[in-house]
């Protein structure tokens, strides 16, 4: 379970936090909460807007609550003030003392006076929260997914009004929980549907809800069954290796991807005839993945794409010109990959994709500390896919010392090891970072700093020279041995 946040609150604030949060119900009030759920395949994007009102002067730390199940499925959490680009610092408080919810504290940029208001926008991305229903579908059938969530947004503060909007990508919504006997908090109809949007609410005067009692009594479960006409993709495992070479001034990045179509499993046999005819008539199966388009970094060359069988020639790379280090650019090389077979529901495909890129676009040299700084991209985004398990290994040049690394967000665990490859004597230091449940928001850069003086560069030629010298010694000895028969 991975979260992303800027952990900049100091221990001092943590000390202030303790008593503040337990009595959190007193310093804020939610005047309105609007939660918008954008349904998708593997990923669901939830945006919750809190209109908060401070009840006392100097209120700055607002507490967010996430229910148990929601917390488990949330893979990205970011809070901002509406209309501003700056990300607010989030601190994980932990499980609520009253039970039932995980709490996070958000630091507002300006302390609010009594009755001061602010609009907080919290964006989350949920993974593994939808499932195909029915879970089997024939080649030409469509695909439908079910999404489950809780009805009410939890909060440790009193809420004046809240509503939840669930937006489906297509207008075909097969069914949704209608809450026939639910009349708490509302006098009108508890749920309305308009086109592809289902609105649960508005619900009025909800007391502080992030506690076990409220959840047991009042919380309701909502299930939406909707049509989805794109393949549901999951990368079961991603192993990225980034190898830095100083002799060749090159950064090689290699991804070993195990891709799965986790949508409705294929019912019956795969009919190549049906597949070809559906492609010909322009009605391809919606849950099938025929090809992938990936956006790779600019300035790459010598890309390779192979799987267990061998090289896969059905790929096309269009390279974008090289972009200098550190420059934010929208230029991407486009790689169209066509696996050996179309990925039907429940099918897997493992492949290796790698490329070389000039090291000057990724590494810099800091004269003051005498260290090299390299920025390694964490992952390549596969549209709509969640990466269940990721392992990123950064291999530094032989003899590198004083190694330090800064990932964009903390890893589950990391370790330093030795990687031995061509022309190595002592082996190369390698940093391995492990992550879980990565989404498109997690594609950042890992910065690694290390020292690699000139003497480390000489290690390889000297190793090869030693091998040559041994050959010359053999020749030297052979000249002095007389094997003639006397």
């Amino acid at each position, binding site marked *: 379970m991975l979260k992303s946040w800027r952990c900049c609150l100091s221990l001092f604030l943590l000390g202030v936090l303790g008593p503040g949060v337990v009595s959190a119900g007193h310093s804020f009030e939610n005047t309105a909460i609007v939660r918008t759920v954008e349904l998708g395949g593997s990923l669901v994007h939830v945006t919750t807007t809190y209109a908060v009102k401070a009840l006392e002067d100097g209120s700055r730390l607002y507490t967010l609550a996430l229910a148990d199940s929601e917390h488990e499925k949330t893979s990205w959490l970011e809070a901002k003030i509406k209309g501003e680009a700056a990300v607010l610092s989030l601190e994980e408080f932990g499980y609520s003392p009253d039970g039932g919810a995980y709490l996070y504290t958000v630091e507002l940029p300006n302390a609010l006076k009594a009755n001061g208001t602010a609009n907080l926008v919290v964006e989350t991305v949920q993974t593994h929260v939808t499932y195909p229903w029915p879970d089997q579908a024939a080649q030409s059938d469509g695909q439908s997914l079910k999404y489950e969530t809780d009805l009410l947004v939890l909060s440790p503060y009193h809420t004046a009004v809240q509503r939840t909007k669930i937006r489906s990508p297509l207008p075909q919504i097969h069914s949704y929980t209608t809450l026939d006997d639910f009349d708490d908090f509302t006098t009108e109809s508890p749920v309305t549907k308009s086109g592809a949007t289902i609105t649960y609410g508005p619900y009025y005067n909800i007391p502080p809800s992030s506690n076990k009692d409220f959840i047991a009594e009042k919380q309701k479960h909502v299930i939406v069954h909707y049509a989805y006409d794109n393949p549901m993709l999951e990368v079961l495992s991603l192993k990225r290796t980034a190898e830095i070479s100083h002799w*060749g001034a090159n950064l090689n990045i290699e991804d070993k991807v195990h891709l799965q179509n986790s949508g409705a499993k294929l019912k019956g046999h795969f009919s190549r005839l049906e597949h070809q005819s559906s492609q010909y008539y322009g009605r391809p199966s919606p849950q099938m993945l025929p090809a992938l388009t990936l956006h790779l970094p600019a300035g790459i060359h010598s890309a390779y794409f192979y799987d267990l069988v061998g090289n896969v020639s059905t790929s096309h790379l269009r390279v974008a010109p090289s972009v200098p*280090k550190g420059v934010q650019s929208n230029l991407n090389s486009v790689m169209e990959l066509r696996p050996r077979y179309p990925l039907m529901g429940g099918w897997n495909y493992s492949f290796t994709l790698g490329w070389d890129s000039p090291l*000057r*676009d*990724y590494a810099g040299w800091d004269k003051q500390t005498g260290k090299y700084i390299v920025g390694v991209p964490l992952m390549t985004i596969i549209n709509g896919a969640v990466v269940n398990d990721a392992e990123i290994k950064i291999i530094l040049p032989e003899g590198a010392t004083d190694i*330090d690394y*800064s990932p964009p967000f903390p890893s589950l665990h990391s370790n330093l090891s030795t990687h031995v490859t061509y022309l190595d004597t002592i082996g190369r230091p390698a940093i391995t970072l492990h992550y879980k449940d990565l989404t498109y928001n997690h594609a950042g850069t890992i*910065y690694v700093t290390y020292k690699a003086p000139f003497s480390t560069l000489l290690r390889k030629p000297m*190793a090869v020279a030693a091998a040559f010298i041994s050959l010359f010694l053999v020749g*030297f000895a052979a000249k002095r041995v007389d094997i003639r028969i006397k």
Partner: protein
Amino acid sequence: MADYASIQALHKASPAFSPYIPVGLLPYLAFLLLSSTFALAFYFSTLPKQTLPVREAAVASLASVLGGFGVVALFCSVGVYV
């Protein structure tokens, strides 16, 4: 451990990595060095035996060092960036 934003700024501001030997020269360097190694090895094989093998040692050492750099340059030229 400095924080992420400062490392990001340092990464952007620092001068880009540049190798001691330009990468474009490596194939030519590989050819030169390896052909010198070959020539010196051939010369080594023609040297007469001496009690104190000074000449043989010198030629062998020079050939080995040139060969060492030549092989590294060769690896980089063919795409195995060591």
